[in-house]
């Protein structure tokens, strides 16, 4: 079940955590080592596990008492073949820095869940341009001719979902629900292969929940703890996606001290955030 997945094991350079890292490697899970210790000893352990179990083992010495990570290391955590939820509406509110780094590191075979594929050269469009996306689950791709071309030539799988249904499926994934019942799509091509449910004489489609391995989120403000606030329409899918992935990574326009965002103005509470990408 964990084969090919990536696990970040904190404090894994020694002791019980090292044991956990070895046990995960044994079932072919790639490992991100993390912790403090003597560099040569860590390097030896890293090499041994990689050789013994035939998995990828990387080391990161980030201090995870604060959830901060460099852009490079944040993206290094994302394995090829991962499912990503990426916020943004026509590129507005997409984590551009994370997208650029995904392209730089050449993370291939991604499944991208997003409202749209923006346009070539912008937002998620850059991932499509670079040929990194094997599947997209989106509500609209009409303004990205590259996605259309790849869909027609079968280089990319495209699953089109009504926008209100897409955001509700993501919300369900983050809120612990199996799915939602929506009237949208009843008696249209969207109904194909879905369960139809009558409630009080009205027809609904059962639309199942969506989750992702990683959600790279964009926000206007993030405080040191990871509390987030958004700007205008750059909010869109971001706060909903922040709840629906195993690992949530935030790239904020501005990192500010704790307290700058008043409690009433926090849209995404800090415990939902696993990593905050540092500036520079």
């Amino acid at each position, binding site marked *: 079940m964990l084969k090919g997945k990536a696990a970040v094991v904190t404090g894994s350079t020694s002791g019980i955590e090292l044991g956990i890292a070895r046990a995960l490697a044994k079932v072919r899970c790639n490992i991100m080592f993390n912790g403090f210790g003597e560099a040569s000893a860590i390097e030896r352990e890293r090499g041994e596990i990689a050789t013994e179990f035939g998995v990828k083992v990387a080391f990161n010495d980030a201090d995870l008492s604060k959830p901060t990570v460099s852009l490079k290391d944040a993206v290094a955590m994302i394995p090829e073949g991962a499912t990503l939820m990426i916020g943004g*509406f*026509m*590129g*507005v*509110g997409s984590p551009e820095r994370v997208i650029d780094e995904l392209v730089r590191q050449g993370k291939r075979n991604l499944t991208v869940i997003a*409202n*749209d594929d923006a346009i070539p050269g912008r937002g998620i469009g850059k991932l499509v341009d670079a040929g990194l996306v094997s599947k997209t689950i*989106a*509500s*609209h*791709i*009409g*303004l990205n001719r590259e996605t*259309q071309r790849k*869909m027609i030539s079968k280089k990319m799988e495209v699953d*089109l979902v*009504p*926008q*209100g*249904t897409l*955001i*509700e499926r993501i*919300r369900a994934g983050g809120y612990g629900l199996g799915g939602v019942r*929506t*009237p*949208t*799509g*009843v*008696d*249209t*091509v*969207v109904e194909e292969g879905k369960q139809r449910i009558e409630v009080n004489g009205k027809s609904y489609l059962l639309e199942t929940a969506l989750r992702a391995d990683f959600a790279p989120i964009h926000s*206007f403000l993030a405080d040191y703890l990871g509390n987030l606030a*958004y*700007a*205008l*329409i*750059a*909010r*869109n*899918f*971001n*706060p*909903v996606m922040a709840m629906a992935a195993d690992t949530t990574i935030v790239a904020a326009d501005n990192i500010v001290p704790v307290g700058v965002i008043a409690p009433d103005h926090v*849209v995404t509470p800090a415990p939902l955030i696993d990593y905050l990408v540092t500036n520079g």
Partner: protein
Amino acid sequence: MIMDAQSIIAKRIASELRTGMLVNLGIGIPTLVANFVPEGIRVFFQSENGLIGTGAPPEEGMAHHTLTDAGGRPVTALPGASTFDSAMSFGLIRGGHLDLTVLGGLQVDQTGQLANWMIPGKMVPGMGGAMDLVTGAKRVIVAMQHTAKGARKIMRKCSLPVTSLRPVDLVVTELAVIAFRDGRATLLETGPGISVAQVVAATEAELVIPKTVPEMAL
């Protein structure tokens, strides 16, 4: 003043606006409706990317990348505007909070079913918010030209995949205003200088034609 087809459609639809309404305008002709809001009428325009209180495009040099409409064009936010995430945006649309949506159309059939999101094998852009808007808005008005390159778009039955099982309320073209009630299409008004016979000739659907059909008051 002689108006072009798009302006006739947009201005006629704008006369349906009432103060206090929450209104969503689609891309294309529907967007033009905002240019014809009657004097003294104040409505809230929603952009489904997360804004109520959408205003006109900003002055040159005043655009901001986090303030666009659902088509990606720079807009302004009027005093009293609010922003929200996509779950709330579509909760507003599906939950019966949206008074009116104006959408473009490829075809409408005589029962009011709309097809406006794909042409199999030719144009598959994705439905975006269209299916939710037609399913959930309290009132749905289609803004479109009456024919496309001579082909009739108001048909007996849509040949393209439909957007929702819910029929639209009104279709406004440069030739006619047609209402859909009880599964039938009724001709309410004709376009400027257009006769009933001209509308019938340009329409495949069977129309209910009242004794008197006034011309659009623009």
